[in-house]
């Protein structure tokens, strides 16, 4: 076994054609984000409530990962050479399921079973239930420690695969996240990328009233990570940040983190303006309005 194997650093257009222009790429990924949001609204309606706000806020991050960056085979979720995407925020599963449906790993028709008895799509994401779900999240602060082990294990076995960990700003409260941040730097896991959804909201309220995590950028930089901070609802900015991370990815090198400032409920003005809540309540008659607002916003943007 070797540790000198190179991780894949290029960003081949895995979904688009090789002749795709940057504008076409942006359009393709934005359309994926739009569909992911639609899936999330439909799942939220089935449940009558839920983590729709988070799913909408993180949809652009999910779209960039699944429609552009991640190497995977939807028909073979255990393909050995796949990149690993670890969702440690289990309650974001609604957004992840939407992305897995968009990616073709699970059928779109299955999404309506979300959170129902005997479904493969439980409210909180678990690896033992869902194809394409690498770990069981939910107990926060677990994703990055597991990602460290996966990145070490893949590198040791000479794999060029990369590891992505999706975590939330609330998870930065957990000490284990920072144990892992030190571990990633100490072991120079250049095949590891963390993505932090900074929506500034936690279960008990705004992050800066629960446990102040800022200055977040300086913290990650101080821990030795290649750190970028972007508008997490700007697909173009996200693509550029992920391209940068991919360009400096290496078997041995600094791990990278992309800090993504997002807006809860993004894409649906009705929800963007609603008082922010971790577990958002939406009235029965409002779902159709949400979908119409989402579509109107997407079409307006597409016309521009």
């Amino acid at each position: 076994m070797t540790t000198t194997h190179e991780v894949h650093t290029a960003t081949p257009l895995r979904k688009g054609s090789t002749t795709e222009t940057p504008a076409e790429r942006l359009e393709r990924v934005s359309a994926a984000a739009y569909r992911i949001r639609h899936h999330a609204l439909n799942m939220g309606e089935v449940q009558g409530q839920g983590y729709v706000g988070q799913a909408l806020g993180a949809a652009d991050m999910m779209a960039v990962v699944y429609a552009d960056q991640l190497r995977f085979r939807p028909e073979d979720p255990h393909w050995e050479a796949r990149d690993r995407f670890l969702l440690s925020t289990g309650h974001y599963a609604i957004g992840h399921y939407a992305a897995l449906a968009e990616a073709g790993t699970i059928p779109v028709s299955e999404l309506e079973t979300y959170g129902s008895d005997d479904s493969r799509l439980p409210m909180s994401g678990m690896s033992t239930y869902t194809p394409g779900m690498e770990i069981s999240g939910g107990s926060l602060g677990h994703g990055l420690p597991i990602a460290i082990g996966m990145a070490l294990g893949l590198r040791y076995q000479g794999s060029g695969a990369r590891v992505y960990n999706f975590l939330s700003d609330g998870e930065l409260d957990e000490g284990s996240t920072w144990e892992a941040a030190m571990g990633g730097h100490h072991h120079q896991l250049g095949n590891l990328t963390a993505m932090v959804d900074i929506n500034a909201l936690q279960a008990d309220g705004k992050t800066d009233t629960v446990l102040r995590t800022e200055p977040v950028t300086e913290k990650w930089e101080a821990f030795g990570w290649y750190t970028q901070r972007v508008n997490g609802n700007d697909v173009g900015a996200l693509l550029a940040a992920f391209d940068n991370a991919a360009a400096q990815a290496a078997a041995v090198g600094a791990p990278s983190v992309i800090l993504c400032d997002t807006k809860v409920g993004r894409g649906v003005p009705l929800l963007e303006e609603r008082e922010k809540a971790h577990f958002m309540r939406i009235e029965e008659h409002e779902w159709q309005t949400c979908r119409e607002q989402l579509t109107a916003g997407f079409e307006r943007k597409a016309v521009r």
Partner: protein
Amino acid sequence: MSAVAAPKLKTSAMIASFADPGQKTAPAPFGHALVKAAQENDKIVGLTADLGKYTDMHIFAQAFPERFFQMGMAEQLLFGAAAGLAETGLVPFASTYSVFAARRAYDFLCLDAAEPNLNVNIVGGLPGLTTGYGPSHQATEDMAIFRGMPNLTIVDPCDSTDIEQAVPQLAASEGPTYLRLLRGNVPTVLDEYGYTFELGKAKVLRGGNDVVFVSSGLMTMRALQAAKALAEHNVDVAVVHTPTIKPFDAATVLAEINTDRLAVTLENHSVTGGLFETVASAVVTAGIGRRVVPVALPDAFLDAGALPTLHDRYGLTVQKIVAKVLSELK
């Protein structure tokens, strides 16, 4: 006033030896066994949380530096990362002290390793009362904590023989395991009994007509010594060694308990939630109306001090076992 007070014993090093003077021992049996297993299985890797030298993991680290990962004094990272390594198909052995594995990293072991049933092997030093450093280092309730974790196999070895034979079996078994590590110069005891370690099996080490000891861990060594001492009192004692605490070999143990002999459990662990309660629940479940007498540590935070003093104070010495049995037989 007494004429001359005996000098007080000293606590000595953190890891005090429990080997008797002149007893046959083997150096670092876990470390050497892991190296041997790793020579045959290239998936085996080792990790520790700044306690490599104190868990005999340093032997493996020296033999396979590229397969050893130092995670620093960060136990949540240690076991989360061990699960991540297992997710990529490797077979990690991750060592720290039992107190830190059981108390500090439980959530990570439970959800990251046990729920997905990964082959993560936890190696816990200083189980029960094997240090005089007090409750911060004495894992007197580790089995009680771990027994509640689904999928987890728990092994409480007696000696170097047990450890040497257990390591490859732990690596070969599916799912997570917890080994109550004995490290340093570990007594070699069971080689005299025609014994082999089999994961999940209890073994009758000697027969006896009056009393049956059911023991695990280093208390099997004491049980065998106490059986010899009791023979001098014309008490005939059988000893059943049950190194696998979970899953428990109830069939073998119940067959031995379901007789007219006095049944005694012996463990280097709190009387709460360890071997005694494992046996008791098996006895009750089977509907066997037998009394079982525990030799175990009290449900209390234990004193600091010298190990011989503490083993005597809490009833783990051969002398105390003999006295307890004789009083039960009166």
